[in-house]
């Protein structure tokens, strides 16, 4: 009897072990924080509830060091099975990513049923590097114009007719400055150096210009268009529409700012501030309406040799599932899902997020207004060059001419290193 009991127990243990080994555990690391992290956690929790054979362990919150950590995890043969990479970081990170069309487990796109027709074409097209596909787009995010309806009314403006071009924008800014106590405009969220550079980018790109030549051999921005963009940015301070060190996020949420150029992630902050606000497309400041933007993409980092094929396939299928359910990414994260069916899901279209801001963001994306920042292997260093020079112009330490010349010289040194 005793030996029978033992045998049953051993058998049960073996069955349990067999069951446990059949389950695939995927680690997923993201750079999301705040509302984005909560939205992704919601999606992953739903994934885990819907699957018994595959479970995802989610790690989030590291933004500043995320790419270095991902790279080092690959070096240490300890990379997560799913990661997130911005489109513009692809040249820098491709070496640490699995080519989805040519992985050790074969073509994962075919295996998981991921195809181009399921996604916004521009976002999908940006996911290839040197002939291989590394990225599956999750979303796109960009800047737009948030405005305070109460301040518009106090300034004698129509809150249902936000500015659409430079003349209307300037007229609105002057009216707010002259008729209210509020700041009129902030062109760059919280005014951090990298945000000010983004403002200069969209003003520059709006003149149909590019920062570098096609082969990234030299800088091309030290020209009249660069100067005009720079002078327009500093006119915010020169026209007393705002102060040089102003934080647009704080000013807007305190009800002290009329118009703020900020990203779609501002939705929840603006809503929770209890303001009566509106959202509009980026005005056409120069020749065409352009906005700064980027995309998050799901990736499979390089896995250690000997990783079973099932793990690759499970990761690819999880990526597909997350995108199929990314309407929650729009509703709770405030981003525009790249996956067509998620973007047109009724839940998303009925949500406040969509009604208030995402519908307009989607129009901007569909109108081709989105312009990616620098996409180059040295992008972080090149972006720093713009950050420090544009910030110094904005706070009055440098002239536009000196800043552009300095930035051009530094950028060329990096490109020709």
């Amino acid at each position: 009897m005793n030996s029978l009991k033992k045998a049953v127990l051993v058998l049960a243990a073996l069955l349990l072990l067999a069951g446990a080994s059949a389950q695939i555990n995927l680690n997923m690391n993201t750079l999301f924080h705040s509302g984005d992290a909560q939205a992704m956690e919601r999606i992953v929790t739903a994934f885990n509830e819907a699957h018994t054979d595959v479970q995802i362990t989610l790690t989030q919150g590291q933004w500043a060091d995320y790419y270095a950590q991902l790279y080092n995890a690959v070096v240490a043969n300890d990379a997560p099975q799913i990661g997130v990479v911005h489109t513009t970081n692809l040249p820098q990170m491709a070496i640490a990513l699995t080519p989805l069309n040519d992985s050790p487990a074969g073509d994962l796109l075919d295996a998981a049923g991921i195809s181009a027709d399921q996604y916004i074409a521009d976002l999908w097209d940006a996911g290839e590097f040197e002939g291989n596909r590394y990225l599956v787009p999750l979303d796109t995010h960009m800047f737009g114009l948030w405005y305070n309806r109460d301040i518009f009314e106090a300034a004698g403006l129509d809150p249902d007719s936000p500015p659409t071009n430079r003349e209307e924008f300037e007229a609105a800014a002057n009216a707010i400055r002259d008729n209210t106590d509020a700041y009129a405009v902030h062109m760059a969220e919280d005014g951090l150096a990298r945000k000010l550079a983004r403002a200069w980018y969209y003003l520059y790109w709006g003149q149909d210009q590019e920062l570098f030549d096609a082969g990234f051999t030299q800088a091309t921005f030290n020209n009249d268009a660069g100067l005009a963009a720079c002078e327009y940015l500093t006119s915010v301070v020169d026209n007393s529409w705002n102060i040089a060190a102003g934080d647009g996020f704080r000013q807007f949420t305190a009800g002290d700012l009329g118009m703020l150029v900020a990203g779609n992630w501002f939705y929840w902050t603006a809503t929770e501030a209890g303001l009566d606000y509106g959202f509009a497309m980026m005005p056409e400041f120069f020749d065409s309406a352009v906005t700064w933007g980027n995309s998050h993409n799901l990736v499979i980092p390089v896995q250690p040799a000997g990783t079973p094929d099932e793990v690759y396939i499970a990761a690819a299928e999880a990526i597909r599932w997350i995108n199929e359910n990314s309407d929650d990414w729009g509703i709770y994260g405030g981003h525009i899902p790249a996956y067509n069916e998620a973007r047109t899901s009724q839940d998303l279209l009925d949500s406040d997020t969509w009604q208030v801001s995402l519908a307009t963001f989607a129009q901007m994306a569909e109108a081709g207004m989105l312009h990616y920042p620098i996409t180059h292997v040295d992008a972080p260093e090149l972006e720093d060059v713009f950050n420090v020079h544009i910030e110094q112009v904005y706070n009055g330490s440098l002239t536009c001419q000196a800043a552009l010349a300095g930035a051009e010289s530094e950028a060329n040194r990096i490109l020709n290193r």
Partner: protein
Amino acid sequence: MSTQRSRRARRQITGILYVLPFVLVWLTFLVWPVIYGFYISLWRWDPLRGSEFVGLRNYQNLFSDPRFWNATWNTLEFAAISIPLIVGFGLIFAVMLHNSRFRGKAFVEASLFFPYLLNVSIISLIWAWLVDPDYGILIHALRLLGWQEAPAFLNHPLWVIPLIAIATGWWLSGYRMVVFRAALKDIPQSILESADIDGANGWTKLTRIVIPLIKPAILFSIVLSALSAFSVLGQVLVMTEGGPGRSSEVLALYLYRLGFHYFRMGEAAAVGFLLFLLMLVVTILAFRFLGFESEFERKPGGAR
């Protein structure tokens, strides 16, 4: 004779065993990283694409890069302002508390020490808020006092490093105060009473008796403050991200960006090694000029 020798050997082994855990930790977490960091600094370090031995070229690149010299200058400026603030205020608070008797003294001491308990991010956010040009209470107070054009301190190339140094002084001087308080309590009352009988005033007692007698505590505070000043990162990262422009980009931030943003690990390791050398030199100089021993421990005839 042999029994005596074996007893001595056993004592030595016991001593070695006592220090062995520390030595192992020291070798693993200090000596080895320094050696390995120097090794990396001789390479164009890229484990995935393949590393290439470049000798001292990373150092040459740094020495010819104005950004490196700017970061070095900013680090020295920060150290030159923050070290006297931290040590000076720590000493002043300690002496004032030591010489005073009033109700609530413990509360004052706890209040002065309290900032040290806070995380660097909290300190940085508090000070960033205090000097916010729109909503900062410090800016508001300065305007009430008549300085209508008070600058946006963190957005001003001349003010930014001093302001971060002041915030650091506020953060760290409380801990130094506790160190000095302990040292002051060790001074025999009889010496101070003798000085009183000889007619010494407060300043004379401070400069001729108190400071020489707490020299080890001062040395400890200076070395500790110098190490934290030369490796400053958190305050700068949270308060300014090195800006405006590169006005507050210190060596540790430059290193961090080289390594973690630009993936130029070889050059980052070179900056790290140079920073290590800089701190080593400063520490040796501090020991040389101040000495390990207080006046208590000095041997007759000045032999040390």
